[in-house]
């Protein structure tokens, strides 16, 4: 069995802790994501999928339980260490507002590397152009996000997520706002990158047709994992 890139043990997440309206949205989640996997996270709206994704992506912290990324426990890391780990090990693809409008497609792809390096460089620009070439967007490399279609923007977002060569990419409904053809193209692109680079993908989706084409489906219902908790041996 492949090494786990993400391990959650007894992870709970509650909002308004200690107040009368305290609400627990994740209940004692145990989950392992195998390295190199192409995984779908499904479940009805409000089931806790996005919360789980945010916790795995180190954008949010669990109320209790432990989370390890690439074998490193995250509970004792401070904000700067969490930010560093997130910037280097995890890539994100969001459903909407994929790109920063003030920058071109190429600059958006360069951005995670520029943030990590402190400034741009020829090598960073070349890598961004290579990534745009891989997602088939060389002709629009210098276009602003506003001048690109939703499918193109999502491809740029995937290229950006790959920029730092992360071991894990989290995609929150990446095809949710796209037409069928664009959604298929974006899904296939992620699949190809997964196979080519071995990067782990965890994709939140409502599209069961796409989910069934993933290596594993993890289903969340009412804050509990009801299916796909452990990788199949």
């Amino acid at each position: 069995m492949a090494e786990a890139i993400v391990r959650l043990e007894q992870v709970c997440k509650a909002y308004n802790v200690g107040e009368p309206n305290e609400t627990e949205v994740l209940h004692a989640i145990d989950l392992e994501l195998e390295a190199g996997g192409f995984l779908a996270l499904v479940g009805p709206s409000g089931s806790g999928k996005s919360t789980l994704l945010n916790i795995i992506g180190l954008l949010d912290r669990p109320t209790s339980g432990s989370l390890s990324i690439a074998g490193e426990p995250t509970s004792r890391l401070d904000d700067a260490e969490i930010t560093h780990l997130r910037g280097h090990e995890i890539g994100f693809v969001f459903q909407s507002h994929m790109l920063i409008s003030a920058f071109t497609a190429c600059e958006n792809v360069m951005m995670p590397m520029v943030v990590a390096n402190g400034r741009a460089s020829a090598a960073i620009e070349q890598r961004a152009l290579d990534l745009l070439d891989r997602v088939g967007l060389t002709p629009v490399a210098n276009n602003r996000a506003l001048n690109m279609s939703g499918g193109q923007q999502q491809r740029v977002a995937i290229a950006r997520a790959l920029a730092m060569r992360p071991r894990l990419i989290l995609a929150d409904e990446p095809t949710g706002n796209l037409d069928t053809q664009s959604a298929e193209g974006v899904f296939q692109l992620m699949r190809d990158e997964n196979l080519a680079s071995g990067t782990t993908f965890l994709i939140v989706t409502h599209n069961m047709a796409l989910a069934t084409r993933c290596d594993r489906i993890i289903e969340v219902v009412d804050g509990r994992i009801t299916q796909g908790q452990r990788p199949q041996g």
Partner: protein
Amino acid sequence: MIRWMPFVWTGALRFLADGRLQTGFIVGGITIGVAVIVFMSAMLAGLEANFIRRVLTSQPQIQLLPPDQVARPLRGASREIEDALVQRPSQRVLSIDQWQMIARRMEALPEVTVVAISMSGAALAVRGSASRSVSVLGIEPETYLRIVRLPDYLVAGRIRLTSDDIVVGTELAADLGAVVGDKLLLNGASGSSRVLTISGIVDFGNKGANLRNTYVALRTAQSLLGMIGGVTEIGLSVGDIYAAETIARQIQASNAVQADSWIKTNAQFFTAVQAQKNTNLLIRLFVGLSVAFGIAAVLVVSVIQRSKDIGILRAMGTTRTQILKLFLLQGGLLGFAGSLTGSTFGALALVYWHQTTRQADGSELFPLIIEPQLFVTTALLATLTGVVAAMAPALRASRLDPVEAIRG
């Protein structure tokens, strides 16, 4: 993306450029504020410098005069009766007691650069059937003209003061119908008279001074006023004009003279200048506050508009400190850009005002003083104001929860 530029600079510049309408409006507002500050500061400095130049070239910076005469009732008699009121005696024109020794002492003071003795008194200037009362000032030209630059005010003739010469003002010359080379009869208060030749006519830019001030040689004045060998005033120039009052007080404390500095004799002017400075300071303060609130308002809106961008940046590894710097920098850049354009517009307005506004005699209203220091200070203050104003929105941006920010 410029390769050598740090990420936060790139981000700040791009965010400002992306919201160019907002950026344009706030830079416009800062420009107006800075232009007002630059214009007013430079104009006030010019007016003050002009007045000081006029004052200091028309009177000594410190005047040493005989002390006031006071009545001293005799006391100690066996049946002493003290009057309820002691009448102040009339002030006769007196020579400074031991003026030669005092003048030598003044010359020895390191703060004093020029010592000029003079004699002044009242006389009646007569030409034909016309007569005017005048103030006669007897001077030694070689020293006095180093303090009061009479040649600067000359409109006809020259400043030549032999024992038979007199220099008069334009108003007196006009009233008496005299020109350079004409004779004037001067009748002194002591009863003596002299016939003098007008060698020069001066214009002080003041009607009263042009009517009353006349200049003759020191010995001529001593003879006319009946005080041979006497001196009624010792004029001093000092190195630091603003230390004149302190030096005057020190001189008065150690010599039997009354010492008046130009600061004391022009106290009303300094009160007016100080009032103008206070007003200018208040205007600067309120303009600065307006600019600060304007920058803060624009950046608060920017933080709200860019919350998703901030969330994405945080997701890709941007630290809270980098986000803080990114917005502080935007504030500083707005202030700096506004100060550059504002200084330019302020200076242009000053040049235009200087060229189009003249005094009644056609001379400049104020000297054009455009000091680089004013622009540097303004730019620094405006940039600092921008950074301080950006503090609240920058802190808000840096504290944004990435999840909330991405969700918008």
